[in-house]
């Protein structure tokens, strides 16, 4: 239980996808212009992370890893398919995004309309694939921890993008040097927020 809790808190604050690893920066910069769409995208990213991480975890441990195929019989125990992991992970993520898109379109047309183009683009959000690759690197003990890690990373990402959108809404009224307007000042603010998040780095539960 403590492990679940500490993974959860760590993945939100300490290993924050944006401020510690810069994952999902592209959509972070492009979509953080107002709070409402930012929140919608954040929820969608969290949802996909929570869905794909357990699936990829099971695939990694029962199909791809060295010796993972041992359950099929002794002659498969030597097989190491880990070089296939990029293709498998991205295929799972892309098809899952497509699936979610179709389900949302069918059962929640209002949400679908408000998310618009962002839903299909989640497939190429680095944060999602990054979550799976970190999961592979960190070798979590069981599928529960992996799921909680996905949930935490998603929430951390959402926190960052919503905060950024709120700051940018206020920025419209400030007097910024001309060459820094738009992209430049956004980078600086992200950096400042990142320094703020660094104070969590000693956090232990």
């Amino acid at each position, binding site marked *: 239980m403590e492990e679940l809790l500490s993974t959860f808190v760590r993945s939100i604050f300490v290993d924050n996808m944006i*401020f*510690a*690893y*810069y*994952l*999902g*920066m*592209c959509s972070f*910069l*492009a979509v953080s212009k107002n709070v409402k769409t930012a929140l919608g995208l954040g929820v969608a990213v969290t949802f996909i992370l929570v869905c794909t991480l357990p699936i990829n975890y099971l695939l990694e441990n029962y199909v791809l890893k060295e010796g993972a195929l041992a359950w099929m019989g002794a002659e498969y125990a030597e097989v190491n398919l880990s*070089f*296939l*992991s*990029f*293709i498998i992970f*991205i*295929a799972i993520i*892309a*098809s899952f995004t*497509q699936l979610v898109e179709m389900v949302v379109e069918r059962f929640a047309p209002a949400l679908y309309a408000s998310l618009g183009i962002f839903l*299909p683009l989640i*497939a*190429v*959000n*680095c944060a*999602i*694939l*990054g979550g799976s*690759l*970190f999961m592979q*690197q960190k070798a979590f003990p069981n599928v529960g921890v992996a799921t909680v890690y996905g949930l935490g990373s998603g929430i951390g990402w959402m926190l960052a993008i919503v905060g950024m959108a709120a700051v940018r809404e206020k920025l419209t009224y400030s007097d910024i*040097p*001309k*060459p*820094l*307007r*738009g*992209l*430049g*000042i956004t*980078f*600086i603010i*992200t*950096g*400042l927020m*990142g*320094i703020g998040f*660094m104070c969590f780095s000693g956090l232990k539960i």
Partner: protein
Amino acid sequence: MLGPLNKNNPVIIQMLGICSALAVTSKLEPAIVMGLSVTVVVAFANVIISLIRNTIPNRIRIIVQLVVVAALVTVVSEFLKAYAFDVNKQLSVFVGLIITNCILMGRLEAFALGNGPWASFLDGIGNGLGYGLILVIIGFFRELFGSGSLLGIQVIPQAVYDFGYVNNGLVILPPMALFVVAVIIWVHRSRNKELQES
């Protein structure tokens, strides 16, 4: 082909591929390796997609592109593991993340789907180099001020340290990369006034 190096740079103008540009640049060497890997992958992915662009059904084109890119990245990753293991360790998950690097999807969607193989190849090389250029600039400053070395060789002489100079540890940390990019954008836009946002 030279446009992406300056006026149409993928990182600071088109806002593509920022994730990896920031994460791998705390030292110069991984920055160079990353720039080269991305250039190779973009160029060949562009050629392949451009060759099969008329046969891909429109609805599933993102998945097709992802599979092509993922296959190329797997090759690059195995190559790095074999010939540059230390750098591969430093790059960790970011080699795999070339797959979702926005430069790839951006160029495939915007260019390779509508142009012939040779033009796409040049476009890929140009954008890859433009991306590499920014990476090298960031990596240069971060390694110089953060570790006092370049490519692992000590540049700032010991005598300076004896006078009380200290490496700036903040430059190695993630947030500083963002500031460096902001300064690059600032300089670039002051020189090219037409790019400024109102």
